């Protein structure tokens, strides 16, 4: 028996592909793949690059890409390791010091920086208090930049000199912004920034003094990762590494959500790709039934016929995917060009990964979705050459579509790295397809009976749908899927943004007041009430360190680099309270009541994530070192804390009476509208011991990041919409032949344009409405799953989804009428030519 090898089939496949390249269905398939790959590549690039940009912005919160902190100086090896990797380096030494002048003294947080600082972001300063700020620069030797509140506290002016230890420094500028200040604002006192060169002369830093040394590094992600691995083994217990992701809770929270959102959008694009490919591949196969039968007659085996057509599709898929990847790359370049003003100057390139992922996505989608129609080609009976109406036997659909679904699931999972998200999307899609598709099929068949009494356009339009009820159900599902993706994304976009915005309401506290002495408490609260509408309560605050859990030293209990590890390295802000904090949520145990507290041992409520990290359980006995005094308390409850709300939050809350005998200061936060700086100065003067911390700058940084994320979200939505519409048109194209024939015939029989347009409206409006209904139901089911399991949001029904059938009828109706307008203009002569 003759055996046609693959090498002989290849030139044949190429020849046929070249000849068929002008045929409609190949163009549609090419276009569908191109759009899908372009969309997923562009979203991939956009996600990767935006993520990179956001990490860069997050780096600003550190002032660097990587921070090596320690209570002792970094070793020479640790420094030279970084320099050998050619990374940029800066050094900071921070300590608390009392600044003394003739007018008084003020405990200040001194930062000595070398001339390279900061490596990410810029310092901002002004010539005098409340003057316009300008970016850049760093204090020169002999100079100091200070925050305005230090000037207020000590009644100083720019040009005066202050003593830091034994060194006299001249105040040259007002420090208004430090990029890395956001990280740890609870422990701040007024800042004085000086040159590192002056540090030895101050004599402040002596062996044993409490000093924080920071080595700042800036480099590529690769360099940073290499450096991390290099120095990790040799790090002292007192040293810690901080990367951009650890920099700030609010930022990493926003990054996490944005990443999930972008993943969801690219998954939607992949699903759309599948729909487009399935539609056009099916047309590709149908139009090759005759050729397949002829080739079988001429002696080609089923396998060879399959190979021949698979080769054609593979070549086409590869070409379309490459073109799509290139288009996607260009599209995202254009977008970043457009967003130039809003995004940081340096945006990482994104590399080749999104392009390769886009191409792979296109090819896998082609394989998965083109397989069932292609398999039909192998089963075309050769007898079809004599009897044209002989169709191939139907495939074992479960197996073929199961394989397609599995490959799609795998690629979704690989791209999203989120099994839960992938599974809920796949499961939602499957359940929707089976249940809703079945329902749709039944109702379409039911419609047949109603048709008899309908007017001509309705009967013609619905007749077109009813001719192949399975196809119509499939199309409604496909368009339904597109609408569902768009609705889901619009819904999540609104929901997520609302959550982000709620996190930062316009009147979020913009000042923290700390070190309020017990004697000043009442007077300060009174004055604050006059200034601010709703100040937070005054919380007692004592600094203390957790040293033992159930008598065992915590240092032996926790792993390095965990939140727990960091929290036992430094003093925690501790408080006590009679009432449960309103923004917290009780996870386990019980909050104390005043009655129950009497005659009971001290109790403590622990923040749940810290408890998890330190493996603290209810009933554990914790030992704290508070200013040299050891105190014990039993854990009676675990709380979930919303760290994003910018209000005073505490890891540990003691029961009243358990630590209240120890020296205490008070802490609060409040909102002061901009433009009230004078009142603030008056407040600072009235209570000189109090430290006021402005968080406006931090809020501004957060808002700017949120603005970027919002923009990204909107752009991605636009892209999915464009992809969805292209797929819709691709679907319409695949039925164009039949419509052209029907249009020409109706014209021949004397139908006017108006009737034909009304027929189209009836058909596509009905299809769109059905799709919209499916989308609304599917969207509610999937959103409920996603909210509950993926995003941790409370789900509520969305009545506006009921407009989807109307939107579906309009969108699909308009697209349908536009997409098939060629058939309205079809020359009636076509009917004669076909004969």
């Amino acid at each position, binding site marked *: 028996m003759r055996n046609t090898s693959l090498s002989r089939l290849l030139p044949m496949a190429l020849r046929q592909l070249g000849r068929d390249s002008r045929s409609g269905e190949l163009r549609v398939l090419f276009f569908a793949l191109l759009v899908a790959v372009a969309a997923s590549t562009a979203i991939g690039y956009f996600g990767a690059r935006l993520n990179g940009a956001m990490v860069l912005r997050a780096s600003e919160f550190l002032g660097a890409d990587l921070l090596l902190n320690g209570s002792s100086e970094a070793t020479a090896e640790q420094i030279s390791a970084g320099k050998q990797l050619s990374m940029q380096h800066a050094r900071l030494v921070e300590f608390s010091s009392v600044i003394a002048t003739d007018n008084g003294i003020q405990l200040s947080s001194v930062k000595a920086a070398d001339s390279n600082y900061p490596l990410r972001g810029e310092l901002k300063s002004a010539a005098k208090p409340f003057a316009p700020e300008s970016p850049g620069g760093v204090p020169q030797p002999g100079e100091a930049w200070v925050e305005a509140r230090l000037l207020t506290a000590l009644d100083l002016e720019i040009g005066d000199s202050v003593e830091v230890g034994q060194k006299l420094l001249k105040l040259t500028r007002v420090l208004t912004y430090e990029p890395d200040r956001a990280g740890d604002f609870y422990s701040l006192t007024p800042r004085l920034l000086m040159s590192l060169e002056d540090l030895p002369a101050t004599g402040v830093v002596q062996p044993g003094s409490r000093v924080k040394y920071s080595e700042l590094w800036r480099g590529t992600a690769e360099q940073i990762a290499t450096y991390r691995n290099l120095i990790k083994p040799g790090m002292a217990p007192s040293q810690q590494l901080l990367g951009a992701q650890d920099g700030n809770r609010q930022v990493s929270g926003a990054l996490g959500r944005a990443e999930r959102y972008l993943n969801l959008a690219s998954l939607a694009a992949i699903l759309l790709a599948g729909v487009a490919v399935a539609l056009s591949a099916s047309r590709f196969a149908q139009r090759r039934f005759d050729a397949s039968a002829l080739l079988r007659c001429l002696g080609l085996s089923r396998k060879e016929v399959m190979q021949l057509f698979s080769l054609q599709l593979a070549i086409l898929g590869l070409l379309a995917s490459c073109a799509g990847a290139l288009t996607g790359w260009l599209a995202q370049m254009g977008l970043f060009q457009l967003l130039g003003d809003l995004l940081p100057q340096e945006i990482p390139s994104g590399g080749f990964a999104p392009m390769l992922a886009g191409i792979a996505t296109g090819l896998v989608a082609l394989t998965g979705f083109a397989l069932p129609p292609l398999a039909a080609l192998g089963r075309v009976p050769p007898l079809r050459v004599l009897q044209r109406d002989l169709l191939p036997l139907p495939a074992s659909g479960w197996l073929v579509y199961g394989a397609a679904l599995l490959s799609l699931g795998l690629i979704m999972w690989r791209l999203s790295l989120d099994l839960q998200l992938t599974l809920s999307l796949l499961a939602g899609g499957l359940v929707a397809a089976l249940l809703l598709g079945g329902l749709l099929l039944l109702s379409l068949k039911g419609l047949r009976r109603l048709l008899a009494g309908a007017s001509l356009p309705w009967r*013609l339009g619905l*007749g077109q749908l009813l001719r192949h009820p399975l196809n119509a159900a499939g199309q409604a599902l496909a368009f339904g899927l597109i609408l569902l993706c768009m609705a889901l994304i619009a819904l999540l976009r609104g929901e997520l943004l609302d959550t982000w915005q709620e996190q930062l309401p316009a009147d979020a506290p913009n000042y923290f007041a700390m070190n309020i002495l017990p004697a000043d408490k009442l007077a300060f609260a009174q004055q604050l009430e006059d200034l601010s509408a709703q100040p937070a309560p005054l919380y007692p605050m004592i600094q203390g360190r957790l040293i033992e859990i159930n008598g065992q030293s915590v240092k032996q209990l926790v792993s390095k680099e965990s939140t727990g590890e960091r929290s036992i390295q430094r003093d925690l802000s501790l408080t006590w309270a009679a009432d449960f904090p309103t923004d917290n949520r009780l996870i386990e145990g019980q909050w104390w009541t005043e009655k129950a507290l009497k005659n009971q041992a001290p109790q403590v409520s622990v923040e749940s994530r810290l408890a998890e990290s330190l493996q603290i359980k209810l009933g554990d006995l914790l030992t704290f070192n508070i200013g040299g005094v050891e105190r014990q308390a039993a854990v009676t409850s675990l709380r979930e804390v919303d760290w994003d709300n910018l209000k005073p939050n505490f890891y540990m809350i003691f029961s009243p009476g358990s630590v209240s005998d120890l020296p205490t200061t008070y802490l609060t936060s409040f909102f002061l509208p901009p433009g009230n700086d004078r009142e603030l100065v008056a407040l600072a003067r009235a209570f000189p011991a109090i430290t006021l911390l402005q968080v406006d700058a931090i809020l501004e940084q957060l808002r700017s990041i949120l603005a970027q994320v919002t923009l990204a979200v909107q752009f991605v939505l636009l892209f999915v919409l464009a992809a969805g519409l292209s797929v819709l048109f691709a679907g319409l194209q695949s039925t164009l032949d039949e419509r052209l024939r029907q249009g020409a015939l109706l014209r021949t*029989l004397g139908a006017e344009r108006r009737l034909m347009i009304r027929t189209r409206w009836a058909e596509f409006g009905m299809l769109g409405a059905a799709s919209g209904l499916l989308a609304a139901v599917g969207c509610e089911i999937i959103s409920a799953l996603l909210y509950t399991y993926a995003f941790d949001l409370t789900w509520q029904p969305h009545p506006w989804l009921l407009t989807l059938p109307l939107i579906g009828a309009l969108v699909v109706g308009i697209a349908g009428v536009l997409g098939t307008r060629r058939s309205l203009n079809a020359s009636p002569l076509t*009917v*004669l*030519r076909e*004969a």
Partner: protein
Amino acid sequence: MNASILNVKHLSKVVPSAEGELTILEQIEFDLARGASLAIVGSSGSGKSTLLGLLAGLDLPSSGEIILAGHQLTRLDEDQRARVRAEHVGFVFQSFQLLDSLNALENVMLPLELEGRDDAGQRARELLERVGLGQRLTHYPRQLSGGEQQRVAIARAFAADPDVLFADEPTGNLDSHTGERISDLLFQLNQERGTTLVLVTHDARLAARCQRQIRLEGGQLVTEAVS
């Protein structure tokens, strides 16, 4: 009463092609009386189907005039010509051209509904019974044989009582026995209803059943015969 239903003067059709202009029909002239039957014969590519398309107002000539049932077709736009077809013209095609989405009855009702007639259902039923398909009213085209499909097409063609029936190789896709029966039906109905018949065919026997035959060669009318 005007005896002429179809009048053709100086009719030419020229189309652009890669080698320049291609003349498909050149200076065709004839006149057809109401109720007459005319066969257009000629070899493949002689311009028969193009002529049929022009006569029915499916396309416009490059020059010349066609007057169909008193309407100067060359002066009408596509929608106006569609109205003329709905009122005066019926068609039978070689490949039947039934709408797959409609059943036999609905296919026959179609031209009546396009005309806006209320008795569409009843008339269509009568016609289908007349062509012997009274038992197949609700069958869809794919459930019917070729001969049955062509009978539905003939019923549809006569449904709106056309003045002129254009038939393009009406027996071309059928075996000789079925073809014979279909052409009998066609001529019977033609006589019963006094319809003018214009048909394009290769079949010499079918052509011979028409009162007049015109032969096209290279786009020109070369001979005319009267049976």
